[in-house]
């Protein structure tokens, strides 16, 4: 039912670098983030964090804390559990997570008690007075050790005497045959450790419980409140309609605010018990230890089977994924892997052997890429290894295996479909922008001078618009086999012809208001200055899955198209009546509906709107007053997985693509790496706003640099988080990123989406890590250094260099 417009064909607003609608209030310090929310009589909460990675809680004495002046309430996990149930969990069987630890703690920093006081200062003073007796339990930090845990080392004994949460091998196509037919099998073992979004704003909530109505009102900076927010009501033990969640803008997320249920549930629990509104805002240490949103943490053993001429046949990967202490999203991250496991290549078969383990670390959640960026890393690395072994240029081996433009829509071995693409065009553009041949020459000259310059071309996918099937199709028993992941919009035209757009998902730093404005402007030919965008709470909310998996712009475009179509239909009916013309003879342009070929016979949108709202007796008989539409837009192309999971169905078909080419110089004495050039060409289909897309490419690249070179949540053998503050967890400053990330665009519109838009929000993070690893390895080729373990810090690189120089 959606109209699929061709890309670049005379759009007025789509494709414009329109200044963002969100910015004026943000620029002037007038944005309302969660910590800016103040309600009358509001109290403040703080949580006591466990110093132990794994321990039974033997006793908690809160008496001294309660006596501190200014303290309103002190609550242990056991007390919380009397009124609040476990937090939401998408895994099946679920892994029970209390909002505050009850009888045992499972990672350092987990909450064991909470205080409500007149100020956060006093609340923290009270924390100092809480006495907890712990009985330490064996700590499991090494994921390989977790494979054989038993007894007291098991985090969730109710699930069995094991820390293995899931073990499954999925085979797609004739993997064994393809490997048997191979001339060359390249094998790499790799390690991708956990990093995380760590936006500058932490997670917070302001909760009020109205005893008169039995209803919670909770402000929160979480997403998915209009998708599964009611699950928080379940945790809070109230009927789902007795919870209204009001979204605030978020100071960044990158996935880490996808569904942050714990903080609002703690705030709600405390507010209900205290009889006062409660603000609970994580401080930075709370957040780093207990954000519930660490990224993928994987050990890999990967094999790529090829012919001597570089044709890729098959890919086998075996991975242990360390999920930490809980499993809120199940192994949905491996759905992301399966979405683009074979990359942009015509690899014939794929096998994924997954073991998900639980350990005494903070749990995984979502981080830009949701596991697919890791697949990009391992695939590109093993391809580079193959290129090396076969003596092929890294661009040649990739080119040789690209899916060709005429092969789309293309079904990959896992069952997912890629909608469109032109990988050759992206590569060519990037090679041109970077001057690949020029740099290869410079590299040669530099080597003669004893300098180490490297070039790292990689080509990888950026899947967008997830289907919810990926949250459960890896489970042996699906549990809740959800198949909807829609996005909704409310659209109304007021009597004066102004447009009001209601979004059902939040602002994270992506540009939902700007996207909505540009798309409504395009659809209804209303000027952006006459469009107002607001956000709905859950009481008034329609189903909105929210930003994530680079889906939001695609989905809101579809939703707006749906709503706009309904509004246009009604406007045409009314206009036809007003102009005494046939609806089929009318056209909408520049805010006016006119008779085709007779432009003086026209009515403006405000004319029509005024008529629609106030002059019922002048409307056609079958038209009621008003001019508005809600539209719930479903995923445009998704299908069920097969029973045996040999085919996962279509679940992530809107497939973007990128080529990143960094040029680096390595100082082999210190291991430091300098960027000499950085080119990033992306294909995100039809681009709504090139400026904002470039922002995601650059911002994402900076985060990719962080994961590749600087960031790690580093737990020692006792489970202490050694990188638990911003001094130790190394988010890149401007000095650590290239001076100029040169961005290029190629557009292969999607045949399945409105305007042909593809998602691009995950941006540069999808490609930067393998590109950087490739460039460093290329620089150090004379020394034979391999980059298989991230982050590739100067220290680690120095070690590899020293080993290589010693080994000869």
């Amino acid at each position, binding site marked *: 039912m959606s109209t699929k417009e061709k890309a670049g064909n005379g759009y007025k607003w789509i494709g414009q670098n329109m200044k963002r609608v969100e910015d004026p209030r*943000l620029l002037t310090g007038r944005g309302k983030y969660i910590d800016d929310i103040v309600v009358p009589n509001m109290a403040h909460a703080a949580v006591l964090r466990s110093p132990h990675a794994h321990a039974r809680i033997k006793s908690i004495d809160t008496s001294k804390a309660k006596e501190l002046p200014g303290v309103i309430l002190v609550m242990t996990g056991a007390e919380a559990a009397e009124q609040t149930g476990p937090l939401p969990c998408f895994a099946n069987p679920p892994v029970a997570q209390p909002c505050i630890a009850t009888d045992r703690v499972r990672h350092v920093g987990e909450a064991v008690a909470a205080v409500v006081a007149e100020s956060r200062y006093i609340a923290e003073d009270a924390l100092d007075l809480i006495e907890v007796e712990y009985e330490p339990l064996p700590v499991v930090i090494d994921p390989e050790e977790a494979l054989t845990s038993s007894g007291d080392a098991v985090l969730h004994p109710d699930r069995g005497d094991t820390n293995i949460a899931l073990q499954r091998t999925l085979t797609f196509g004739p993997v064994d045959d393809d490997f048997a037919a191979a001339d060359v099998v390249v094998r790499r073992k790799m390690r991708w450790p956990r990093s995380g979004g760590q*936006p500058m704003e932490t997670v917070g909530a302001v909760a009020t419980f109205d005893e008169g109505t039995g209803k919670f009102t909770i402000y929160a900076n979480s997403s998915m409140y209009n998708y599964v927010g009611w699950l928080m009501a379940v945790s809070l033990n109230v009927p789902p309609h007795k919870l209204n969640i009001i979204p605030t803008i978020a100071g960044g997320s990158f996935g880490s605010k996808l569904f942050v249920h714990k903080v609002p549930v703690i705030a709600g629990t405390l507010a209900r018990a205290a009889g006062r509104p409660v603000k609970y805002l994580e401080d930075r240490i709370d957040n780093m230890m207990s954000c519930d949103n660490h990224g993928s943490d994987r050990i890999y053993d990967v094999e790529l089977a090829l012919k001597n001429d570089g044709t890729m046949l098959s890919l086998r990967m075996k991975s242990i994924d360390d999920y930490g202490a809980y499993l809120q999203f199940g192994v949905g991250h491996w759905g992301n892997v399966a979405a683009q496991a074979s990359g942009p290549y015509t690899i014939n078969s794929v096998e994924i052997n997954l073991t998900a383990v639980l350990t005494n670390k903070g749990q995984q959640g979502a981080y830009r890429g949701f596991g697919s960026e890791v697949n990009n890393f391992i695939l590109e690395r093993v391809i580079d290894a193959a290129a090396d072994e076969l003596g092929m240029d890294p661009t040649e081996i990739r080119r040789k295996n690209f899916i060709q433009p005429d092969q789309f829509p293309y079904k990959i071995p896992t069952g997912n479909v890629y909608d469109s693409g032109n990988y050759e065009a992206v590569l060519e553009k990037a090679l041109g922008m970077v001057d690949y041949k020029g740099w290869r020459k410079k590299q040669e000259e530099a080597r003669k001078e004893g300098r180490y310059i490297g070039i790292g071309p990689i080509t990888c996918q950026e899947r967008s618009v997830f289907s919810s099937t990926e949250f459960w199709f890896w489970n042996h028993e699906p549990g809740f086999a959800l198949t909807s992941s829609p996005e909704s919009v409310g659209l109304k035209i007021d009597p004066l012809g102004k447009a009001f757009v209601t979004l059902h998902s939040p602002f994270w730093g992506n540009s939902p208001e700007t996207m909505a404005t540009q798309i409504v402007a395009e659809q209804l030919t209303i000027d952006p200055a006459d469009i107002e965008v607001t956000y709905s709470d859950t009481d008034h909310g329609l189903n909105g899955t929210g930003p994530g998996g680079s889906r939001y712009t695609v989905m809101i475009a579809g939703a707006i198209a749906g709503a706009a179509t309904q509004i246009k239909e009604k406007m045409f009916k009314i206009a036809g009546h007003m102009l005494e013309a046939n609806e089929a003879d009318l056209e909408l342009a520049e805010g006016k509906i006119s008779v085709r070929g007779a432009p003086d016979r026209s009515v403006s949108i405000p004319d029509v709107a005024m008529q629609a709202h106030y002059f019922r007796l002048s409307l056609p008989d079958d038209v009621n007053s008003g001019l508005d539409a809600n539209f719930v837009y479903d995923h445009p192309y998704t299908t069920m997985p097969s029973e045996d999971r040999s085919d996962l169905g279509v679940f992530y078909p809107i497939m973007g693509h990128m080529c990143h080419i960094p040029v680096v110089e390595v100082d082999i004495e210190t291991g430091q790496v300098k960027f000499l050039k950085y080119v990033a060409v992306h294909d995100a289909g039809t681009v709504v706003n090139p400026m904002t897309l470039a*922002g995601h490419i650059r*911002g994402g690249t900076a985060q990719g640099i962080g994961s590749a070179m600087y960031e790690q949540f580093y737990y020692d053998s006792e489970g202490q988080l050694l990188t638990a503050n911003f001094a130790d967890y190394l988010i890149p400053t401007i000095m650590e990123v290239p001076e100029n990330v040169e961005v290029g665009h190629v557009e292969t519109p999607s045949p399945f989406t409105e305007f042909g838009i593809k998602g691009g929000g995950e941006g540069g993070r999808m490609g930067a890590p393998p590109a950087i690893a490739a460039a460093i390895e290329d620089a150090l080729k004379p020394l034979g250094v391999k980059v298989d373990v991230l982050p590739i810090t100067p220290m680690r690189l120095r070690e590899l260099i020293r080993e290589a120089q010693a080994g000869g």
Partner: protein
Amino acid sequence: MEQEKVVVSVNGVQYERMVEPRRLLCDFLRQDIGLTGTHVGCEHGVCGMCTILINGRTARSCLTFAVQVDGAEITTVESLGTPTNMHPLQAAFWEKHGLQCGYCTPAMLLTAVELLDTNPNPSRDEIREAISSNLCRCTGYQNIVDAVEHAAAQMNGGAS
């Protein structure tokens, strides 16, 4: 705990308040004065979100007690302009897409104000040096440099 009197000028307005000595300046500004444009990111002086100007100089308000600014002039982002009357820096950030979530933006703006006060025509390297005191997780920084460069040109008479 005994309270201390603080008399401080914030964005040109004089305030007199009684505060606990331990009250951090960021909390004083956000909660006691009600100016929430200054943000809090880490409370240990690394991220820069809480940056304000004390007597024209950037400082981390999370590493300053309110009592220490008795008698001082504080400048926060709210002093720079309004949506209909923006400071050239704000206009430049808007033009050059120098923000995404907006959380670091007040800090970046005030850091740029300090830079341009003493160095009205900074090179890109000088802008990068100044910006390096603040983290941004969204933009990758590049557009922020473009924005400051553009603002400087505008403020120096429009030569771009």
